[in-house]
């Protein structure tokens, strides 16, 4: 079996640092949520190889190091490799980074080494640029601009490590500023990415890096339509779709990045017909079906959720644009309905937000399609959905919408739902504090009692007392009136 050329990347966290990791994660999470509120949620990536993670030596003054190393690099015949290596370590320090760019011709020196005849020096030079690109300081990142035409040119090269480094550097630089991004666009970053992905499609590490860089371009707010239209005109969407199926764990990173690119494309594009025609809904939904089998056999350190999340979003939003009569061309309905219920059950405890997104997709699927609604019933999924009705955080309201979608389709489905025990569950949901749940419950009960005299009688018998309590006790007048109307219908 073919295996890609894996560069062993080391996570910066050891297994025995889990507590520290959790602490850092909590701190970061707070900051990330605020960033999202400010519409500034952007992240760079720092590529670290195992051989590069040795601790750097403490030196007295970073500035002096930078100056001295720069001098050494400018001298003819010096052992540039050694100095570059030392410089790349020094440049992990933010103060050193600032100091470096303040030195005259510093980036120019690096670019010279990047384009020189020594292959190892090229690699080390791009390493230095990568460290600089990771800086949160816009000035530092912007200072690297002279290197970008070369970085783009090197994307057509063949060395994995070198190409990866160029890509992640470019990906980080995309976030530097609007001016930097516009320059990159003018220099043809998108066609370069497209041909790189095409040529290196057997190299999953490079595919992951290309997709990451593309995701950075697609996330920014300015000129997003321009970027999206260039991307849609290229071969990138088709390539992205082809990498959604991870080849064991090695391909998962690439699949994750491609899926997030697709999510951003689906969210921002105005040409959904194009996306649908290229099979976006087909690929995303069938991949969800495949993953739903895998998630039931979950292992530790499982990153599948990072792939499931963007796929759910693509499917959920693409359904909005897919005419219901064409649905079966794009979606294996029975399998997808089953898969979504498996995902719902799997994630309800461990990842409520993902369960909520799954329920949202199931709502979209059942909204206008009778086939999907029938599938929920024929696959015996009603009881597991009923068990989600107590679960809050937006899950139960979405599940109740799903039941309402089903009831809305036909009398037969209402009767079927009654036979499967939905009435008892609705008597409980009528008593909930969440008024949206109460309102939806009344809507569903109304539809059910319309379906047949027997069901009407059953609703009155099983739900009459709960309904009476709503009429007498609910704090919202509109709800009391609705309940009262329903009671009148039941009694006539």
């Amino acid at each position, binding site marked *: 079996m073919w295996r890609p050329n894996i560069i062993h990347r080391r996570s910066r*966290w050891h297994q025995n640092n889990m507590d520290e*990791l*959790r602490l*850092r*994660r909590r701190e*970061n*999470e707070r900051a*990330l949520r605020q960033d*999202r509120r400010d519409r500034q*949620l952007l*992240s*760079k990536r720092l590529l670290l190889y195992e051989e590069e993670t040795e601790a750097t030596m403490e030196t007295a003054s970073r500035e002096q190091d930078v100056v001295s190393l720069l001098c050494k690099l400018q001298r003819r015949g010096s052992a540039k490799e050694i100095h570059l290596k030392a410089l790349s370590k020094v440049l992990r320090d933010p103060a050193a980074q600032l100091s470096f760019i303040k030195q005259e011709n510093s980036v120019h020196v690096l670019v010279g080494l990047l384009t020189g005849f020594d292959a190892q020096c090229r690699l080390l030079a791009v390493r230095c640029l990568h460290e600089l690109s990771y800086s949160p300081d816009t000035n530092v990142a912007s200072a690297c601009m002279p290197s970008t035409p070369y970085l783009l040119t090197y994307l057509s090269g063949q060395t994995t490590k070198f190409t990866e480094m160029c890509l992640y550097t470019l990906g980080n630089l995309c976030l530097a500023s609007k001016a930097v991004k516009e320059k990159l666009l003018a220099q043809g970053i998108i066609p370069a990415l497209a041909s790189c992905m095409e040529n290196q499609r057997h190299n999953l590490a490079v595919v992951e890096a290309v997709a990451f860089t593309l995701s950075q371009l697609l996330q920014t707010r300015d000129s997003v339509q321009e970027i999206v239209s260039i991307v849609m005109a290229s071969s990138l969407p088709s390539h992205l779709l082809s990498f959604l199926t991870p080849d064991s764990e090695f391909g998962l990173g690439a699949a994750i990045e491609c899926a*997030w690119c697709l*999510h951003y494309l689906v*969210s921002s594009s105005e040409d959904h017909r194009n996306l649908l025609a290229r099979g976006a809904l087909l690929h995303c939904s069938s991949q969800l079906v495949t993953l739903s089998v895998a998630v039931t056999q*979950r292992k*530790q350190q*499982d990153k599948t*959720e*990072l792939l499931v999340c*963007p796929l759910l*979003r693509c499917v959920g*939003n693409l359904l*909005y644009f897919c005419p*219901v*009569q064409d649905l079966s061309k794009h979606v294996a309905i029975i399998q997808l309905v089953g898969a979504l219920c498996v995902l719902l059950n799997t994630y309800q*405890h461990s990842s*409520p937000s*993902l369960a*909520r*997104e799954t329920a949202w997709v199931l*709502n979209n699927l059942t*909204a*206008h*399609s*009778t086939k999907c609604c*029938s599938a929920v019933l024929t696959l015996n999924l009603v009881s597991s959905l009923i068990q989600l*009705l107590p*679960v*809050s955080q937006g899950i139960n309201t979405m599940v109740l919408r799903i039941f309402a*979608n089903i009831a*809305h*389709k*036909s*009398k*037969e489905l209402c009767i079927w739902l009654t036979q499967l025990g939905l009435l008892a569950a609705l008597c*409980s949901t009528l*008593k*909930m*504090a*969440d008024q949206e749940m109460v309102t939806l419950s009344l*809507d569903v009960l109304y*539809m059910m009692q*319309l379906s*047949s*005299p027997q069901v009407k009688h059953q609703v009155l018998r099983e739900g009459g007392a709960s309904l009476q309590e709503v009429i*007498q*006790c609910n704090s919202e007048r509109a709800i*009391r009136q*609705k309940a009262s109307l329903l009671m009148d219908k039941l009694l006539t």
Partner: protein
Amino acid sequence: MSMPEFVQFHDVSAGSSGGTHPIEAWMQQLSEDGNPFTFTPQILHLHKDHELFEDGDIQRHLYLRDLYISETEEKTTLSVSEFACHIFGCHARFNLLQEYEHHYNSLHRNMCSSCRRCFPSARLLDIHIQEWHDSLFAVLAQKQDMYLCLVEGCELKFRTAKQRKDHLIRIHKYPPDFRFDKPKKERGNKDRRGQEQKVIEPIDDVCQSEGVCEDICNPMSDQPEKEESMEVCEKEAAHMEDMPTPVQDSEVNTPTSKPQSSYRIPKSVCFGHGSSRGFRGQRGRRK
């Protein structure tokens, strides 16, 4: 409407052959004029900045920053929708349906509409209404035994409330301060008479529970009715504290020897301010 014959399922949006197609008829029924049940299935389109996507975005960026921890390692607790008691003034909330139903059945059901006291069973409520609010009862009680034993199955009747109480203590081993056998107080009546005339619209006031429910009697609202019930509550407590000349029945000497137990209600017990813990103990006994 009669049941339609078996219908081949087809997609809602597909055209139908005629106006009498069962699915179409169903749709028409659902959208008839003036129908306030306005639910319609909707495909929800969510922008990438939607709040529903927040958590997923955070996980994504934690992953990019090398801080992702798979959820299998982090056990999250399930968040459940609460059940709320919707009785006006009662702000109790519960995670389990059984807890909510127990609360409602114990504190809001079997409520006397005259004095708004709640009783644990319909039987006790009936007895209460008869003894406290039925003027005919008062007349008949002068001539015959009318006070029914509270224990279900024991059909004995007594001439006075005190005799019944003695019977309960002696024969049925009830405590002397059984909360559902409070004698009717003359003093309290004046307040309650005013309340009896009040029209009670969908339980717009909190009932006066017999011995339970801190939630209900917390002065949360500025409704005048509420203050009155509080007043009665407090008065009752004060009155209780004044015992041991407990009842104002005509009988002072009990026919049987006075049991060691007294009728004194401990000062710490305030009817209407009591905790539910004591209540549950009694409840179990009654059953």
